[in-house]
Every structure is written in structure tokens, then in C-alpha cells.
């Protein structure tokens, strides 16, 4: 059984998400801790700017979901009132549909954005590294990647693939009119920063400065834009030159403070400054927005623009939802096949097919034998096959009442290539 618990930009404020994010990041053994929870057999932890979700394969879903909810609430230090409304829970088919929709970016703040799939893949990679996932979640994640790929290639939902930067460009145009000649400062050299930079350069921005804790990474990204790379020590000096600042680091504290902006106000000659903080926890001190000619937008503020995009993409989303439904049905079918009876049937069918194929091939020389001898050979072959299959079929039958049979079923299906 699959269970999913989480919170996102629709159910929890940025402050609550920050708390949960920070709580879960403490220590390096998050997945191990999650796996040690009673009733949780396999687990995957997904954290993005907009959501924190735990997907688990479980023997006892009621118990598992309660424990996972308590775990999240305690990690974030949430009050009972805060914890009451911010979580959503899904089971089995609904959980499958939810994760497929997340991976396909149908549940994202900006529908159709492309970053989320990378983040889901990264979450899966970490779970794999720590052996946190098993048969069911492995299959679930692969199916979710396939669903996401189909949605992207078969619909026009990702025509504007860079969601946050698209919203940022729209806002930048409202502030600057044209982006021609504008200087962009990217703080953080991650994928998000890169995508945003690409979009802004396409819209006419003049140059890009990349500031990052690791200068080597900054240089790599800056090279792509023919820009300048600096370390975070030079941030204040570079803020003087910048017109648009996009910050997306994983730093726990504010990187750009209100004091810093106040200090450079005169050196900037009062030029308009557009600050986009797409990091959670936030990189830019919120009080910076009270300063003259400074416009600060965090990830939540982009919600309104996201809503408009969502309307425009509604039509495509209908198609995408149909694709997701198809993929969910496929996954659910596979899950049903994980019950032992269908696998035993498949195994026998497969064996019979092999026997039939081989007997057909041997028909030439067997035709010369007496009918009596032919029957003897038939019986011999069937007897060997039955004896070979006896042990695996017995084990499948014996273990069928136990949840761990799924691993065995999956192994049999894989060993005998029953899924084609």
C-alpha cells in the first residue's frame, strides 16, 4: 500500500514550509529515520521550494500516516493549530495520481514548469543511494518519470518551460519596461538560477553576474552566459551594479539584508532594483522591500502570476490529466499483478509457451518417431518443467498472505521476464 503525506504552497504558508524544511534538514539521516517509523517499509522524501512530501510503502497505512504526520509536525516544531490544516494525505491510487501529477508539473505553482521533474529525480536518487526505496516505490517513480515525459511531449503544457523566470520576466517588464541593457545578478548557481538567467538573457538582459558560495560552480555557470563569476564575499559590490537580483541558494540565513541595501543605496544612485527571492528558506530579508525603489518578490508572491499562466494552460492540462490517468491505470494494473496468483498464472503460461515453441521447432525430427515415443517425450518435458516451477510456485503460494511477498513476486516477474 502506498501512502503520501505532505504540504505545499496551497496548504501551508511560506513560514510553515520553512520550518518543516529546516527541521527535516537537521542531520543527514532523514531517510533512515523515516524508514525506522513503524509500518514504513520503503520511503522517499521530496522537498522543493513549494512542497515537502513523504511517499511511503507501508504495511499498515493508518499507523504509518499518523506517525509520518507527527514526524513532520515535530521536525518543524509546529503548533497543533498549524499542523491541523497544513497537511494533505493520499492513499494508494490517489497517492499514485498525486505523485504523477507532481512529477508532470500539474500540481506546481506554475503549471508546466520543468524544474520539478529534476527535483523529483534528485529525491529518488537520494532515496536509491540510501536504499530507502523498494520494489513498489522504484516502479512508482519510474512510472512517474514516464508520465511526466509523456505530458511534456504530448501536450503543450511546457511551452513556456521556465516557470519562475517567466513570472520574473513579466514583473521585470512592469518595472523596467524593456530588459535591454539590464544587469542581472544571480545568487546561487543551481539549476533554477541557470534557467532564470537563460530566460532573462533571451529577453534582452545585457549581462549576468553569478555569485555563489563555491566560486568554481559560479564560474561554470557564468561561462555559459559569458558572464562574470564572483564569490559571495563580493556580493555587496555587485549589488551596486545590478538591476535584477535572483536569489536561489539553499542558505539557511538571509544573504541579502536590508542593511546591506541601505548601505549601497547612494552608490546605486537610487536606480530601480528588482529582487526575486525564489529560495526557501528566504535569502533576502523581507524588510528590504520597504526601501525606496526596491521591489522584492518571494516565491509565494509569484503565485498570482502563476494563476494567470494556469488559466492559459488549462486546456492543455485537460489532456495532461488524461495521460496521467492512463499511467495511473497502468501502474495500478502492475500493482495488481504483484499479487501472487496472477504471477503464478503468468509463470505457467510462460513455461507452456516455451515448451510449445521448442516442441514446434523439434517437430521435424520428432515426426519420424513412433507416436508412443512422442508422448513419452511430451510427458518428460512437462514433468521437468513442473519440477522446475514447483519450488518458486510453492514459495509464492506460501508467502502470498505476507506483505513481503511483493518483493518475491517482483523478483520472480523480473527473473522470468514476465513483464515483457
Amino acid at each position, binding site marked *: 500500500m502506498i501512502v503520501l503525506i505532505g504540504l505545499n504552497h496551497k496548504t501551508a504558508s511560506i513560514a510553515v514550509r520553512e520550518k518543516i524544511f529546516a527541521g527535516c534538514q537537521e542531520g543527514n539521516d532523514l531517510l533512515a529515520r523515516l524508514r525506522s517509523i513503524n509500518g514504513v517499509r520503503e520511503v522517499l522524501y521530496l522537498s522543493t521550494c513549494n512542497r515537502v512530501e513523504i511517499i511511503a510503502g507501508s504495511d499498515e497505512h493508518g499507523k504509518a500516516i499518523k506517525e509520518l504526520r507527527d514526524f513532520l509536525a515535530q521536525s518543524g516544531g509546529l503548533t497543533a493549530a498549524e499542523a491541523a490544516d497544513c497537511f494533505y494525505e493520499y492513499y494508494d491510487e490517489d497517492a499514485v495520481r498525486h505523485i504523477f501529477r507532481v512529477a508532470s508539473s500539474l500540481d506546481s505553482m506554475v503549471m508546466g514548469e520543468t524544474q520539478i521533474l529534476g527535483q523529483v529525480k534528485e529525491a529518488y536518487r537520494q532515496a536509491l543511494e540510501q536504499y530507502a526505496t523498494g520494489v513498489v516505490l522504484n516502479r512508482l517513480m519510474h512510472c512517474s518519470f514516464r508520465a511526466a515525459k509523456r505530458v511534456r511531449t504530448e501536450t503543450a503544457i511546457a511551452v513556456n518551460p521556465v516557470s519562475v523566470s517567466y513570472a520574473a520576466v513579466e514583473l521585470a517588464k*512592469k518595472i*523596467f519596461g524593456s530588459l535591454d541593457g539590464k544587469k542581472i545578478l544571480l545568487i546561487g548557481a543551481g539549476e533554477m538560477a541557470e534557467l532564470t538567467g537563460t530566460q532573462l538573457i533571451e529577453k534582452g538582459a545585457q549581462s549576468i553576474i553569478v555569485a555563489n558560495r563555491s566560486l568554481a560552480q559560479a564560474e561554470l555557470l557564468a561561462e555559459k552566459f559569458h558572464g562574470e563569476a564572483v564569490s559571495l564575499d563580493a556580493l555587496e559590490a555587485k549589488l551596486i551594479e545590478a538591476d535584477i537580483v535572483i536569489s536561489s541558494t539553499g542558505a539557511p540565513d538571509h544573504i541579502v539584508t536590508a542593511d546591506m541595501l541601505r548601505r549601497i543605496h*547612494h552608490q546605486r*544612485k537610487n*536606480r530601480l532594483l528588482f529582487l526575486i527571492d525564489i529560495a526557501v528558506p528566504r535569502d533576502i530579508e523581507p524588510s528590504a522591500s520597504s526601501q*525606496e*525603489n526596491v*521591489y522584492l*518578490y518571494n516565491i509565494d508572491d509569484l503565485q498570482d*502570476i502563476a494563476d494567470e499562466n494556469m488559466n492559459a494552460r488549462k486546456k492543455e492540462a485537460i489532456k495532461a490529466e488524461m495521460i496521467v490517468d492512463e499511467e495511473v491505470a497502468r501502474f495500478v494494473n502492475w500493482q495488481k499483478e504483484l499479487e501472487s496468483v496472477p504471477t503464478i498464472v503468468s509463470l505457467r503460461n510462460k513455461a507452456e509457451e516455451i515448451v510449445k515453441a521448442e516442441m514446434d521447432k523439434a517437430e521435424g525430427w520428432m515426426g519420424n518417431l513412433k507416436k508412443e515415443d512422442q508422448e513419452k517425450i511430451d510427458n518428460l518435458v512437462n514433468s521437468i518443467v513442473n519440477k522446475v516451477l514447483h519450488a518458486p510456485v510453492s514459495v509464492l503460494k506460501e508467502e502470498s498472505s505476507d506483505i513481503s511477498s511483493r518483493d518475491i513476486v517482483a523478483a520472480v516477474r523480473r527473473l522470468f521476464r514476465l513483464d515483457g
Partner: protein
Amino acid sequence: MILTDLELLSFKIALTLCAASTVGYLFSLLVKQVKLAKFSTWILAAAFGFLTVKFLFVIINSSWFINPDSRDFFSLCAWSVCAVYLVLQFKTKTRVLGAFISPFILLFMIAAAGEEAGRALRPQNLQNWLTAVHLLWTIIGEAFFAIASCAGIMFIIQNRLLKNKKLGGMIRLLPSLNDLDRINHLCLLWGFPLVSVGIIAGVVFAQISWKTGWLIDPKIIWTFAGWIIYGFLLHQRLAIGWKGYRMAVFSGAAFIILLLSYGSVRLCFSTLHNFI
């Protein structure tokens, strides 16, 4: 006689078009449609054309430069603001600015319609080319200031919407902050020398004709104060680097001070400029 009739007809058409464009502009704000604002701009351009035709008739009909009547004065105010706005349209394409400026233009036109045609604006002793330059350049310069202030007010609104993250329809309609700041900058840059030349022409005339006493005229003091304020703003922009919100607030406030002073002087004081 025919010329006078044609002049009146042109004025009436211009007034009607002006009213139509103002309604169109305000409606465009209401329904949040830039297309409607664009259409209104064309109507305003037509109004400007008819107003220009009216002035051509006036020039042909009489020695207008020397002796315009009160209606011409207000019409000239409307024409100047209209001209400055339309020129700016070529440079910045900020149609919605019209929603803020066209009501001013309409007010000038209504004031002009309310004035009795043929009443001499200036007394006989003030009718010469120096006062004509003084009047014309000052009016056009003030039109620039008016538009600088309108842009400033729009900047304040847009700034507020962006700061409060109200990203609904209105924000899409208003020009970008940078464009509004640029309009404010251009208008101050062009308006200030025009008003300066207008004032100098007035000073030269006053010195020649009246010699003493004119400096303590309340309207002159207020106008001079306004000129100093705008000069200060221009200085702050060019030398100190004031930009954006602060410029918007100060230029808006400066224009309100100028309007209040004009109103209060006209109502409460006796002035050498009692003809306007």
C-alpha cells in the same frame, strides 16, 4: 465672419472629441483594455488637429499673437498639454498616461468654452511680443510640468501596486515604472528651460514697462517659488541622482502647490496677472 464661424466649429469639434477621448481613456481603466486607450489616443490626436485648425483660423483672422482672447488662452493650455502628451506617445508608447492627462485637457477646454469669445486676455498696455513669448512659453513649459506630475502620480500608483503585490488588471494597464520615470525626467528637462525663458521674457518686459513694484506681485512670487521647486527637482535628478519614487512624490507635490497657489492668488489677492 465665415472664418469666425469655422473657428468656432473647429473648437466645438475639438471639445467634443476631447470629451470622447477622456471618456474612452477612463473607460479603458475601468475595463482594463489597452486597445481602448489606444483608440482614445487617436481621438485625442484628432481633437488636437481641430484645435490646431482653430488656432490657424485665429491667426488668419486677427493678430492673435499679440492679442489672444481668454478662450484662446485656455485653449492654448489644452493644446500645449495635448501636444506634449502626443509627442511623448511617440517616444514611450504609454497610452494609459492619457487617462490621467485627458481630464486636465478637458478641464481646460471646458474653461475655454465658458469664457466669452473676443474678450481680450491682456489689457491694451500689455499687448506686445514680449508678453506673448512670456505667455506662450510659460504655458507650454507648465504643460510639461503637468505631465511630469501626472507621470509621477501614475508612478506612485504603479509603485504601490507592485509593492503590495496587487498583480491584477490595473498593473498590466499602467506603463512600467521606468517609462514613467523617463517621462517625468524628459518633461522636467524640457519644461524647465521653457518656463525659464517665459519668466525671463516676463521679467524683461516688467523691468522695461513697470520698472519697480512688480517683484512683490503675489503671482510672480508664487510662480518664482514653483520655478525654484522644479529647478531644485531637476538639480536633484541630474546632480544628486534622485530617481523613481522620490521624484514622483516631489513632482506631484510641486504641481499641487502650483495649482493651489494659482487658485488662492486668483481668489484672494490683487495681482498684475489678474487677466488669467
